[in-house]
C-alpha cells in the first residue's frame, strides 16, 4: 500500500494522472517519487509535492492500494483511466477524479470537484461528501457520457449529473442540482432527496428516480401510470408509490422519470390525466 501525503498546501492547480494504481503497481517508493506531474505550468516530480510512504501488507490479488491523506482539492485527474486497484482519499479532491476509469475502486472521505467519473466505463466511485457539477458527464462538447460502472454519492451533487449517460448507475443519497440526466440514453440515476428542476431534459432512454421533492416536471414529459415500487439495481427496489413520466417528447424519447408521490403533492393534478 502506498500512502501519499501533501508536503504543503498547494497554491496552483496540479495535474496528476500518474496517481493511478496501475502505474504505481510494482514500483518502489523511489520510482514513484520520480513520476512526473504538472504544477501550474511547471513540470515537477511527484516526490517534490508529496511524501511517499510504503506500508507492507498482503495484496492478495496483486492490486495496488493508494491512500492519500490530506487536502488535494487542487489536484486534478487522480485515478484517470485506472483499470484496477483502489484509491482511498481522506480529504477533498479536485476535478476530473477517475476520468475515463475502466475498473477498480475510488473511495473519497471528503468533497470532490467537478467532472468526477467523467466518461467512466467501469469500476466504482464512492464519495462520502459533496460533489461539484458534471458528475459522470462527458468532456465539454462530447456526447460520450458514462458507459458503465457505479457512482455512489452520500452528499449533494451539482448540476448536470449523469449527462449523456449510456449505461451504469449513479446513486445520490443527498440532493441533486438542475438538469439531472440531461440527454441521457440509458442507465439509472437515483436521487434519495430533492432534485433541482429540468430533470431528464432531452433524455431518450434510461431511468431517473427521484425520492424527494421535485418542483416541476418538464412540460415535454407525459404521465404514464403510478407504480408501487421501482427497481434501482439487481436486488434493490425502492418502495413508492411513484408517478411515472415518459419523455423527453421533444426528442421522441422513451426515458422513464419516477417521482415519489408522497413528497410531491403539487404534482397530483397529473392524476386526472390517467
Amino acid at each position, binding site marked *: 500500500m502506498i500512502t501519499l501525503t501533501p508536503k504543503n498546501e498547494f497554491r496552483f492547480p496540479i495535474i496528476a494522472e500518474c496517481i493511478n494504481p496501475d502505474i504505481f503497481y510494482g514500483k518502489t517508493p523511489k520510482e514513484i517519487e520520480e513520476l512526473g506531474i504538472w504544477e501550474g505550468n511547471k513540470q515537477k516530480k511527484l516526490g517534490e509535492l508529496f511524501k511517499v510512504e510504503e506500508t507492507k501488507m498482503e495484496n492478495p490479488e496483486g492490486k495496488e492500494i493508494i491512500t492519500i491523506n490530506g487536502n488535494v482539492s487542487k489536484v486534478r485527474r487522480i485515478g484517470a483511466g485506472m483499470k484496477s486497484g483502489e484509491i482511498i482519499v481522506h480529504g477533498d479532491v479536485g476535478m476530473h477524479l477517475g476520468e475515463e476509469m475502466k475498473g477498480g475502486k475510488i473511495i473519497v472521505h471528503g468533497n470532490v470537484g467537478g467532472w468526477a467519473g467523467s466518461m467512466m466505463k467501469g469500476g466504482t466511485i464512492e464519495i462520502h461528501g459533496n460533489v461539484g457539477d458534471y458528475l459522470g458527464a*462527458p*468532456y*465539454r*462538447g*462530447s*456526447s*460520450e457520457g458514462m458507459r458503465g460502472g457505479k457512482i455512489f454519492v452520500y452528499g449533494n451533487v451539482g448540476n448536470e449529473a449523469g449527462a449523456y449517460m449510456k449505461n451504469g448507475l449513479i446513486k445520490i443519497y443527498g440532493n441533486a442540482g438542475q438538469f439531472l440526466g440531461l440527454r441521457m440514453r440509458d442507465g439509472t440515476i437515483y436521487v434519495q432527496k430533492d432534485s433541482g428542476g429540468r430533470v431528464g431534459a432531452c433524455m431518450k432512454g434510461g431511468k431517473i428516480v427521484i425520492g424527494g421533492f421535485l418542483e416541476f416536471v418538464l412540460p415535454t414529459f407525459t404521465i404514464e401510470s403510478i407504480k408501487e415500487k421501482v427497481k434501482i439495481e439487481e436486488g434493490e427496489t425502492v418502495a413508492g408509490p411513484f408517478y411515472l413520466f415518459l419523455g423527453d417528447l421533444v*426528442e421522441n424519447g422513451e426515458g422513464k422519470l419516477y417521482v415519489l408521490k408522497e413528497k410531491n403533492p403539487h404534482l397530483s393534478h397529473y392524476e386526472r390525466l390517467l
Partner: protein
Amino acid sequence: MELLIRNGFVYDPINGVDGEKMDIAVKDGKIVERVNERKAKKIDASGMIVMPGGVDIHCHIAGSEVNSGRLLRPEDHFRDFERKTAVTRSGVGYSIPSTFTTGYRYSRMGYTTIMNPSMPPLEAKHTHEELSDTPMVDKASYPLLGDWWFTLEYLRDGKIEECARHVAWMITSTKGYAIKIVNPGGLEAWGFGGNVKSLDDQIPYFCITPREILRGLCKVNRLLNLPHTIHVHTNNLGKPGNYLTALETMKCVEDLASDNKPAIHITHCQFSAFKGSDWRTLESGAEEIANYVNAHSHVTLDMGQVIFTDTTTMTADGPFQYTLYELSGNKWVNHDVETETSAGIVPFHYRRKSYVHAIQWSIGLELALLIKDPWKIFLTTDHPNGGPFTSYPKIIAWLMSRKAREAALKRINPRARSRSLLPSINRELSFKEIAVMTRAGQAKALGLKNKGHLGLGANADIAIYNLNPETIDPSRKFRTVRKAFKRAAYTIKNGKIVVKNGEIVKHLEGATMWLDVKVSESAKITEDMRRRFREYWTVECENYPVTENYLEVSHPINVEAKV
C-alpha cells in the same frame, strides 16, 4: 541558396519522368539545370522517391465555417494536441486542426499547395486572415458565386458578358482563385426553407434553373480565361439516387468544352454517386459515373473519400447539412450568410459497421480505380467532410494495394461488403499514378504552371519519401507505403528544407495566390448595386473588397480575359 538532390527515383508525370534515377538542382527557389556542385547543399536521396510537392484541390482549412466548426467541437481537440517546439507553434487537431497545425501537418506529408474551397464572399476577409496564419504551404480560395444574387440576375437576363465582368470584379475583390458553385440554386431556395431537386427546378424569385447557372458560369469561366474550371458541388448531394444528377450536371456543359480541355470539376464525387431509392437500398453509382468520365474529356473529379473515423462535416450546402443533422441527431450549426450563400456544420462519425457508411467508403475507392485516366480523378477526402487530410496515406495504400483493400473490406458491414464492387477490381495504382492523383493532375487541373512538376523553372516544391521502388512491392508492403507517405523524408518548399524525417525544421510563410483578372472594360458598380449593398448587406460596397494588405504573402496571378 543552392540545393542538389542526388540519385532519387524521380516521379514527374507532367514531364514524363517515371521513376528514373536522376539529380534535381535547385537555385533561388526554382528548379534549374545545374548548380555549383561544391557550393550546393546536397541531399542524398538514393533509394528514395522524389516527387513534386503535393497539391490538394479541395480541403476546407480556413474561413468562418471552419472556425465555427472549431468552436463547436472542443472534444475533437482535447485528445489531439501538439506542443510547441523551437520551430513550430502549439496547436490542436483532429478533424479541424488550428491554422498553424494544418500547415505543419500538410507539410509533414509532403504537401506544398492547398486550395480552400467555398469562401462566402462576405467572409473573404476572415478567410484570408486565417489563410495568412496557415504556414508552410501556398494556398488559394474559391469564392462561392453560384448563388450570388447579381450573378443570378445577369444570367436570368442573358447578359453573359456583364456577368463575366462582374465575376472578374468579385474574384479580384475577394482575392479568389476559381468559381465555386455549391448546390446551384439550392442555397438561394434554402433561404426560403426549400431546395431544388433537379437541374430544371426553378429557383424562387429568380426564374432561373440550376442548369442555366451552371452553363452560364461555365461560359463566364471561359470568357475570363480562368486557370481552373468551374468547381461544382452538385445538386442533391448526399441523397440516394443522386448519381443521375451528377451525370446530368456533367452532361449539361458537354458542348461548352473545346480542345479536349476540362470544362467542369465535380468535387467530392463520392457524395454524388449514390444509387438506390432510399438509404436501405443504397448502392454504388461509381460504375456509371466512371463509364461516363472514361468516355468524355471535359470532366475532372476528386474523390471525397470517406474514412472510418469521427469527423466534422461542413459545407455551404445548408439543406444537405440539415438532412445530415436529422439523420445523426448531433449538434449542428446552420447559417444563412446574408444574401450570399448558406452553411452548415454537423459532427459525424463514419462507422465500419454501418451499411451506408461502408458503401460510401467503397464508392470513393471504386471511382478512383474504375476511372482509367488518373489525370481525371484526384485524391481528396473533402477534408474534413469525408475524414481529415491526415488520412491521405491510408487512401494511397488502399489504391496501391489490393491486399490493403481486402484487409479493410473484411472489417466493414457484411451487407455492404457483398454489394461492393471492390473485390472485383484488381487494379493497383503505380507510384506514377499516385503522383498524378496527388500532385501533377491536381496542379494541371488548377492551371498552376509552376507547380506539380519538376521541370526547369518550376517552383522548388519537392517531396521526398523514404521508399525504394526497386526493392519494395507496394501491393504487399502497403504498411510501409502508408508510413512513408505519412512522414516525408524531406519536404522542400521554395527551395528550402522545411521538413526532415517527418519533423518540421523550418517555419515558412506560404503565399496566398489570387487572380488579378484584367478585363477590357471593368464591371460597373452601379448606383443600384450600392443601394442594395446598403439595404441588404451588413457591409457597404466600398468596404467589401479585400485589399492586398490583408494577405501576409500576396501572389497575384495575372489573367487576360476575353471581355
